[in-house]
Structures are given as structure tokens and as C-alpha cells.
């Protein structure tokens, strides 16, 4: 078919190590990139704000968490808190008159700092205990934000977000907000793609797989785990700033509770832990499946004239959604990215049945 490995021979290490060694993959990536850039022309404004924008932002967050979960093999159940720290610090900085360019980086740094302080404590334990420790971080940060009026704006208040100006361009309106979120997403995506073919990502993977073998190769395992926390939290903080300035435009503590953390963990797992592509798939599925299922159930009920009670009508999509996630995990525990990979491998060797790998 259109996928072929035959006839493609790389003649330098550089060619062999490029991001997409097969020309078809390269063209596909360019095509998707073009689609996301031209999206405002292609889809209705409502879809841009309601679907594409959250997809881009949540995908970025999932990438950041996937750096920690897939790259370094550490679980984090407090990623919502990390995002909250980035959002609140950048909003407060801009309100205090700091330029947005500095505030967004400072938001990332604040998240990275607090995230790795918790990380340093949490990394003394492993597995389930690490999950509990990060969960504790979520609760502590939630509590502090809600209880300190200087941060949350007091009580049940939501904090209005001022307009940001990025190098002279005011981020107002849907279009500019979308492009800003997309730009951040692209930078994080390229970081995630590149990190795996650089020594940094290899050392992280080594720490994840066998930390004693990594240390005999000269990898300082604790430091690398901590750096993974740092980088992942930094990305989370920047996502928080993007979320506040481009999407919510008013922040309140309930936007960053445990359900956000769980949602992002679910995106990473359903998409495929450690996979860049999977982060996008996972974010899309978790965000849109409930909406699509809801519509599908509604249409089916109308079409067949089914007399469904309002309660069932409300809960059926949720049940289907839950069943779908369980089904995906049973059928392909490595996530949607692995399903994509299987399809790709099928076409790579078509009409034969077995790939070399």
C-alpha cells in the first residue's frame, strides 16, 4: 500500500536517526500539522473553542505527565495541583504587572520547584506509596489554594485573568488563544519526540527499566528521577498558564481538583504510557467520547422511538464510556498508540502478514 520500507535505505546516521525515517510518516505528520494550523478556516468557531482548543491543551498536559509516567516510570496523581500552581502563579504575576513572557516561564518554574520538592520526598518510596504521596500533594495544594485568600481571591471566588500580551501581541479572541496553545503544544511535542533519541531520554528509560544497571553505567538514578519530576512539573505549570490565559480566563480552585489529575492519568494510560502520539489519542478519547456517546444515545433513542427514561438517558453514555475504557485496556493494554502501531505495521508488510519486528 502507501506504506513501504522497501527501497528506503539511509546512508548516514543522521538520516537513520531522524524523527520519521519513513517518508510516508513524515508526510502524514506534516499533513496533520497543516490541518491543526488551518483548523480555524476549516471548522466552525464553536468547534474550535469547544473541541480543538481543549484537545490541544489537554494533550499538552498529557504529554507532560507522560514524560514522568512513560519516560521515568513514576506515577503522579497530583498533576492537577501542578497545573493549578502554574495557573495561579502566572495569573498573579501578570496581575502584579509582570510581562506575560516572564510570567508563563515563572509559572512553570513555580510548579517545577514545588513539584520537585514534593518529588524529592515522594521519590523515597515507590509504586503505590509514590501514588499516595503524590495524592497527598494534590490535597495539600488544593487546601492551601482554597484556604489562602491571597491566592484564590477568597472563599468561593474565581480570580479574573487579565489579558496577556505575548511579545506585543495581545492574546485576545479565540483565534490567537488557539494559536498560542497550539504553539506551546508543538514545542512540548518536539521536546518529547527529541528526548527519546537523545542521551537524556535514554538515561531516563534506563532508570525506569533497571535502576541498578543504570547506576553502573554512571547514571545518577535519584538525580534523574528528580529531574524527570522537575521537567514534567515545569510543563504542567506552563500548561496551567495556557489554561488560565487562553481557555478559562477566570481561575477558581475547583478547576484543578483531583478529577483533573485522574482525567490526565486516564488520558496517558488509555493513549499509551510513554507514547507521544498516544497522548493526543488519549486526550481525544477521554474528552470527546462522553460527548459523542451522549449524542449517539440521543439519536438512537429518537431514531428507533425508544422510550428511555431521563435517568437512563443521562447514565447510559457514562456506562458505555466506562465500559469502553475497560475494553480498551483489556484488548490493548498498551493503549491507542499501540493499536495505531499495529495498523501501521499491517500496512507496512501488506499483502504479507508478518512484520520483521
Amino acid at each position: 500500500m502507501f506504506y513501504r520500507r522497501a527501497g528506503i535505505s539511509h546512508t548516514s546516521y543522521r538520516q537513520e536517526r531522524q524523527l520519521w525515517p519513513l517518508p510516508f510518516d513524515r508526510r502524514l505528520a506534516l499533513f496533520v500539522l497543516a490541518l491543526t494550523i488551518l483548523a480555524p478556516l476549516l471548522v466552525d468557531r464553536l468547534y474550535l473553542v469547544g473541541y480543538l482548543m481543549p484537545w490541544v491543551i489537554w494533550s499538552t498536559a498529557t504529554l507532560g505527565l507522560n514524560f514522568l509516567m512513560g519516560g521515568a516510570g513514576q506515577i503522579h496523581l497530583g498533576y492537577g495541583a501542578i497545573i493549578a500552581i502554574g495557573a495561579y502563579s502566572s495569573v498573579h504575576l501578570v496581575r502584579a504587572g509582570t510581562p506575560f513572557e516572564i510570567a508563563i516561564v515563572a509559572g512553570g518554574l513555580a510548579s517545577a520547584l514545588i513539584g520537585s520538592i514534593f518529588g524529592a520526598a515522594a521519590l523515597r518510596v515507590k509504586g503505590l506509596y509514590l501514588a499516595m504521596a503524590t495524592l497527598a500533594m494534590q490535597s495539600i495544594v488544593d487546601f492551601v489554594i482554597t484556604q489562602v485568600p491571597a491566592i484564590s481571591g477568597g472563599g468561593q471566588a474565581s480570580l479574573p485573568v487579565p489579558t496577556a500580551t505575548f511579545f506585543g501581541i495581545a492574546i485576545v479572541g479565540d483565534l490567537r488563544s488557539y494559536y498560542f496553545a497550539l504553539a506551546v503544544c508543538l514545542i512540548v511535542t518536539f521536546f518529547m519526540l527529541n528526548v527519546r533519541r537523545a542521551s537524556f531520554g535514554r538515561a531516563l528509560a534506563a532508570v525506569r527499566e533497571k535502576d541498578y544497571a543504570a547506576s553502573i553505567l554512571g547514571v545518577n538514578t535519584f538525580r534523574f528521577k528528580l529531574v524527570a519530576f522537575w521537567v514534567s512539573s515545569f510543563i504542567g505549570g506552563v500548561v496551567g498558564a495556557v489554561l488560565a490565559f487562553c481557555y478559562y480566563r477566570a481561575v477558581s480552585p475547583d478547576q484543578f481538583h483531583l478529577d483533573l489529575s485522574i482525567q490526565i492519568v486516564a488520558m496517558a494510560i488509555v493513549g499509551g504510557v510513554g507514547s507521544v502520539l498516544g497522548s493526543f489519542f488519549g486526550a481525544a478519547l477521554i474528552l470527546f467520547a462522553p460527548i459523542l456517546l451522549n449524542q449517539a444515545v440521543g439519536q438512537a433513542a429518537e431514531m428507533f422511538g425508544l422510550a428511555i427514561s431521563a435517568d437512563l438517558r443521562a447514565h447510559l453514555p457514562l456506562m458505555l464510556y466506562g465500559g469502553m475504557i475497560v475494553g480498551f485496556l483489556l484488548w490493548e493494554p498498551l493503549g491507542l498508540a499501540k493499536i495505531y502501531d499495529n495498523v501501521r505495521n499491517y500496512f507496512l508488510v501488506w499483502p504479507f502478514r508478518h512484520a520483521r519486528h
Partner: protein
Amino acid sequence: MRASAAHARTAPASTAGDELALSCRGIERSFGGLRALKGVDLDVARGEIFGLVGPNGSGKTTMVNVMTGFYPPNAGRVRLFGQDITGVAPHRIARMGVARTFQNLALFKGMSVLDNILLGRHVHMRPSALAALFYWAWAEREELAHRRLVEEVIDFMQLQDIRDEPVEVIPMGLQKRVELARALVAEPRLLILDEPMAGMNQEEKEYIARFILDAREERGVTIFIIEHHMDVVTAICDRAMVLSYGETIAEGEPKAAIAEPKVIEAYIGQRAAARHARAQT
């Protein structure tokens, strides 16, 4: 026999201290009530191939774990190229020029053979998250330069056709070779091999033995090897030491060391050793 062992024991000690690649003095290590090492002395001269043998559970791997920093000794000092490394963390010891392979392979699953071997270059690279972000500007040149060095070792170990395979799908003999390649690309001064030939057939054993000799000749590496195959130990080692229940029972020229009555006794038991001795006379 006793005389030759004693002679070999004094030989490295008479030279200057920094001529020694490795020097362990009075190493003690216990696990709970079990004394795995009971005051072991050990010297490895530079450029030497040193064999450590002994029955199962005699403390050989514990000794290696003490030398590489995994188990800091309860008593005693370890010196590496004249520098005291007692209690130093494993990753720091690796940076001082020590590479090692494991008895039960320690390759990184899910990564290709090439990436596994590239990891061996870690001590010579400068990994950072920023370099990865600006890959095209910062990391690429470094990656490609190290790739060239790695490819030389891939050629040397004849791993060309499997370099892109995931490491968990290749047979065990090849996995052992990949692990050796990974240790070698670090360009160590001291290479520690923990049973590199376990589970290998004669042909594979000869291949690895050839490689070990070549590594010393071409790269001047000092090699410390734990091995159960006595034919290999006598064939390639300059000196050997025999451990039993955490104590040195023989040391010196390999053939002489493993022929000592105490060693035979440790391996096959007192009565069998007596029968063996009668048969010899």
C-alpha cells in the same frame, strides 16, 4: 604449589601502590547473621586478567558488589587506581572508569540493541533536558559522534545485523554479547565480568574468551572475571583467587591455585577430595 601461590601474592604488593588497578584490604560484609565476606584481601595489577572462582555462595558476586559500590563493606578499604572508593556511590565509581556486566543480564527491555549500547557511553556524554529540546542545535552532533564509536564496537562484537532489534527478542548468547559491548563502549580502565560465559556452549565460550583477550591487547583494559568454567580460567587468566564461604583459600597462578587440595575439597567435599588425592598419587 604453596610456594608459587605465595610468590604471586607478594608480586603485585612489591610494586608501587598506584600500579594496582584494584586493591581490597580486609573486606567484611554481612547480611543479617550471614557473614558473606570475612576479611578478604585482593589485588589486581594493571593490565592483568584476574579470575575469581569459588563454589556457589562463596561470596564472589558480593565481592564484585562491594567493589562497584552496591554493597559498601562493613569493614575494610577498597582502592581503585590508588584512590580510596570505599562507600562511594556506584554511579561515581562508574565515572572513575569501571564497567561491569551482570550474572543475570541487566539489559534495558523495550530499547533497541543500539540504544542499549549507546547507554554505555553515558559517562562520556552531557545529557540534559535543554539539549534534548534543542536537539538539532545541541544534541545531534554529540549523538552522531558517539554513534561512530559505538558502531566500531558493534563491528568488533559482530552485532551489525541485530542492532535495530528490541533487545528482549534476541537469543541469550547474543544478549550477553550486547551487554559486553555496552560495558566496552564506556572505555573502562577496569572491566568486571560476572560469569560472562554462564549457559554458553563451547563455541560461544571461545568467542567470548577471544574477545576478552582482544580487549586487553587492543584497549589495555584490566579485566576482573568471575567464572565457573575452570578451563577458561586456566586458559586466559594471569592470576586467580579462590573464595570459599567468604574466605580466600587459594591465590596465584590459575592452574596451581585451583589444584590446591583445599580448593578441591571446597568443590567436591572432604572425602571425595581424599579419594581424588589418592588417585593422583
